[in-house]
C-alpha cells in the first residue's frame, strides 16, 4: 500500500513539473480581458499539461513596445497579439517563428478552412507569419429614426460620395445663431479610414503593388482617389455637416452617434454589438451599410484591420509546441464564434461562418451580415489586401496630421495630401535605410 502511495505521489510530482508554462500577451482592454481569460481557461481544461498565463499589456502600441523591451531583456512571451500594421516590423525584427513553418509540420491543421480575404492580408510573399485572430473593417452605421425625420428613405443609405454629401446636408440642423444642433456624419480622425477609402476606390497607398511584391520605396497616395476622399472630408467639415474628433478618438465618435448628435457614423465592425446596444438604450433604429464609393471610381473593397497572434522564438521546443496548440485553439471555429459574439470581430474561418449561418444567426443579426458581406464582396488584389509598410505607424500619424491641417484651414486638400505623400515617402525611406535596404 505504502509503495503505491509513493509511486502515485512521485508520478504526480513528475507530472506537475512537466507542466509547460506559456505566456500570452494581448491588447484587448475592457470586458474582453475576461473573455480572453475564459478562453484560456477552457484551453487549460482541455490541455492539463499546459499552463497559459494571460496578460493584458495595454494598447496595441504598448504591447509592441513591451514586446521589444522583453526581447531585448531576454524574456519574451510565447504568444503575443500584434496589430495589423506591425506585421512588417515583426518580420524585419526576425524574432518570431513563422506560423507557416508550424503549419507545414502539422498535418492535422487545414489552412484552407480560413477565409482567403483574411489570409491575403497576413500572407507576405506567399508566407503566413502570424495567425489571424481578430479581424474587422469599417462600415457605415446610420440612424434610421433621424433619417425619417429628415424626410430620407431609411432603407436607402448613401451609396456614393455625392449622395453622402446630400444626405449629410439634409441631416444637419443649425440653430438661429448658426450653431450645430445635429450634424450629418462623423468618423474618428484616424488614417485607417483614409486607407479604407483608398481600397474602396481600388487605389494603392505605396509603390511595389502596395508593398506586396517588394519593399515599398515611396508613397503614391496623392492620386485622384486620395484627392476625392480628402475633398469629401473637407467639404463635409467646412459646412458643418460632419463633426471631427481629435486624433484616433473612437470613443468620442461613438458617443456622438449614440447620443444622436450625428445621424451617421463610420466605424469598425467590431462595434456592431455595442452600437445595437446603444441604439436600444437611446431609442433609435439602427441601420448599417457598405462604405459609399465615388461614382467615377473603380470598384474596390475593404481591407482587414485588427490583430493577429505571433509566436515568439527563442524558447525550448516543448514550449513552442504548446504555444502552437494554444494558437490553433484560439483560431478554432467554436472559439472564433465565441469571440465574434462577444466582441463583434468577425470569424476568420469559413466553417465558423457556416455554423453561424445554420443557426440562423445572420437572419437575426442583419448588421453582422452587412459587415461580413462587405468583406466577401470585395475585389481581391493588392489594393484591397492592404499595404505593407514598415513605417506604417508613422505614415498614419502623418496622414492624420495632414487631415488636421486641412480641417484647420492651414492647407488646401490638395496641398495637405501632397505634403502627406512627401512626408510619408521620407518616413518609408528612413525605415528602409535603418534596415539596410
Amino acid at each position, binding site marked *: 500500500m505504502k509503495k503505491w502511495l509513493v509511486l502515485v505521489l512521485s508520478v504526480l510530482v513528475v507530472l506537475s513539473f512537466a507542466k509547460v508554462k506559456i505566456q500570452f500577451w494581448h491588447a484587448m482592454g475592457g470586458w474582453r480581458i475576461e473573455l480572453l481569460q475564459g478562453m484560456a481557461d477552457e484551453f487549460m481544461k482541455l490541455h492539463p499539461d499546459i499552463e497559459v498565463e494571460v496578460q493584458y499589456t495595454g494598447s496595441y502600441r504598448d504591447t509592441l513596445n513591451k514586446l521589444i523591451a522583453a526581447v531585448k531583456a531576454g524574456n519574451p512571451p510565447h504568444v503575443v497579439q500584434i496589430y495589423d500594421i506591425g506585421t512588417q516590423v515583426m518580420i524585419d525584427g526576425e524574432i518570431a517563428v513563422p506560423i507557416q513553418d508550424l503549419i507545414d509540420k502539422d498535418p492535422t491543421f487545414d489552412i484552407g478552412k480560413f477565409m482567403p480575404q483574411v489570409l491575403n492580408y497576413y500572407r507576405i510573399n506567399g508566407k503566413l507569419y502570424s495567425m489571424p485572430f481578430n479581424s474587422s473593417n469599417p462600415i457605415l452605421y446610420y440612424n434610421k429614426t433621424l433619417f425619417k425625420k429628415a424626410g430620407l428613405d431609411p432603407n436607402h443609405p448613401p451609396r456614393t460620395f455625392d449622395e453622402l454629401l446630400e444626405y449629410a446636408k439634409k441631416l444637419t440642423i443649425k440653430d438661429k*445663431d448658426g450653431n450645430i444642433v445635429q450634424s450629418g456624419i462623423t468618423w474618428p480622425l484616424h488614417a485607417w479610414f483614409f486607407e479604407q477609402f483608398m481600397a474602396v476606390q481600388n487605389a494603392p497607398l505605396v509603390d511595389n503593388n502596395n508593398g506586396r511584391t517588394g519593399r515599398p520605396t515611396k508613397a503614391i497616395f496623392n492620386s485622384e482617389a486620395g484627392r476625392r476622399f480628402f475633398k469629401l472630408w473637407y467639404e463635409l467639415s467646412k459646412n458643418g455637416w460632419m463633426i471631427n474628433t481629435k486624433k484616433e478618438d473612437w470613443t468620442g465618435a461613438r458617443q456622438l452617434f449614440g447620443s444622436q448628435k450625428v445621424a451617421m457614423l463610420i466605424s469598425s465592425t467590431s462595434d456592431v454589438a455595442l452600437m445595437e446596444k446603444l441604439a436600444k438604450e437611446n431609442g433609435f433604429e439602427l441601420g448599417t451599410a457598405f462604405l459609399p464609393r465615388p461614382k467615377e471610381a473603380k470598384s474596390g473593397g475593404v481591407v482587414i484591420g485588427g490583430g493577429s497572434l505571433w509566436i515568439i522564438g527563442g524558447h525550448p521546443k516543448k514550449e513552442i509546441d504548446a504555444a502552437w496548440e494554444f494558437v490553433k485553439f484560439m483560431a478554432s471555429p467554436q472559439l472564433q464564434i465565441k469571440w465574434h459574439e462577444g466582441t463583434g470581430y468577425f470569424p476568420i474561418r469559413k466553417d465558423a461562418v457556416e455554423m453561424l449561418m445554420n443557426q440562423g444567426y445572420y437572419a437575426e443579426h442583419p448588421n453582422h451580415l452587412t459587415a461580413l458581406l462587405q468583406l466577401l464582396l470585395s475585389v481581391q488584389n493588392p489594393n484591397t489586401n492592404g499595404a505593407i509598410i514598415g513605417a506604417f505607424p508613422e505614415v498614419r500619424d502623418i496622414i492624420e496630421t495632414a487631415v488636421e491641417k486641412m480641417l484647420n484651414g492651414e492647407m488646401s486638400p490638395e496641398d495637405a495630401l501632397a505634403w502627406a505623400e512627401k512626408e510619408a515617402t521620407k518616413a518609408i525611406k528612413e525605415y528602409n535605410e535603418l534596415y539596410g535596404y
Partner: protein
Amino acid sequence: MIFVGLRNFDRLFHSEEYIRAIKTTVIYVGASVILTIFLSFFIALLLNMKVPGTPIYKALIFIPYAISPAIAGTLWSFLLNPVVGHVNYFFSKFFGISVDWITAKPYALYAIIFASVWKVMPFDIIFYLAGLQDIPDDIIEATTIDGASAWKRIWKIIFPLLSPITFYLVIMNIISFMFSSFAIIDVMTRGGPGDYTTTMIYRLFLDAFAFQKTGIASAESVVLFLVMIVVTFIYFYFGEKRVHYQ
C-alpha cells in the same frame, strides 16, 4: 548597431517638426509658468485673508493637485467637448457661441495651458501660503502706518519678500510643464490639431514609442537632458546671488 556620429542630431535640428515642437514648448511653458505664478500668488493672498469658510476653499483649490495628470486630461476633455461638453453648453446658452476647444487652432493650445495651469497651481499656492504666513505682522503694520496702499504693499513689500519662493516655483514649474505635461497632452489633444500642441516631450514619446525611431528619440532625450542641466545650473548659480532673502 551602426555608429552614425552626430547624424541623428543633425537630422533633428534640420527637421521642421522638431523646430516647431521647440517653439510650441517655449510658448506653452512660458505662458503656463507666468499664469501659474501670478494666479497662485493672488489666490494665496485671498486664502490668507481669514475669510469665513477658508478651509473649504482651501480644500477645493488643493484637490487638483491630488489628481493624476491623465485623469485631469480626461476631465477637461469631457468638459471641453465641443458638442456634449459643459463649457460649450454654457457658452452657447449665455453668449450664443460654441468653440471647438480641442480640435481647432488656437483653442487647443489654450485648453492645454488651462488644464496644466489648473493642475499645477495648487502646488504653488501651498508654497505661497506658507510664505505669506511667515511674513511678520509688524512689517505689514509698519507699511500701513506709513500710508502705503494695498496695491503698493503687495508689489513693494510682499512680493519681494516672497522672491525666493517665486524663484524656486518658477524652476519647479518649468520642470513640471516641460516633462510631466505629457499625460495631459496625450489625453486631451494627442498633439493635434496637426502638430500644433506637440511639445518636445510629446515628440519624444511619438518617435520612441509610436514610431520606433530609437536613434532620433535618443538624440531628443539628450537635448531634453541638456535643457535640464541648464535649468538646474541657473537655479543653483543665480538662486544664491540674485534673490532677496530676509
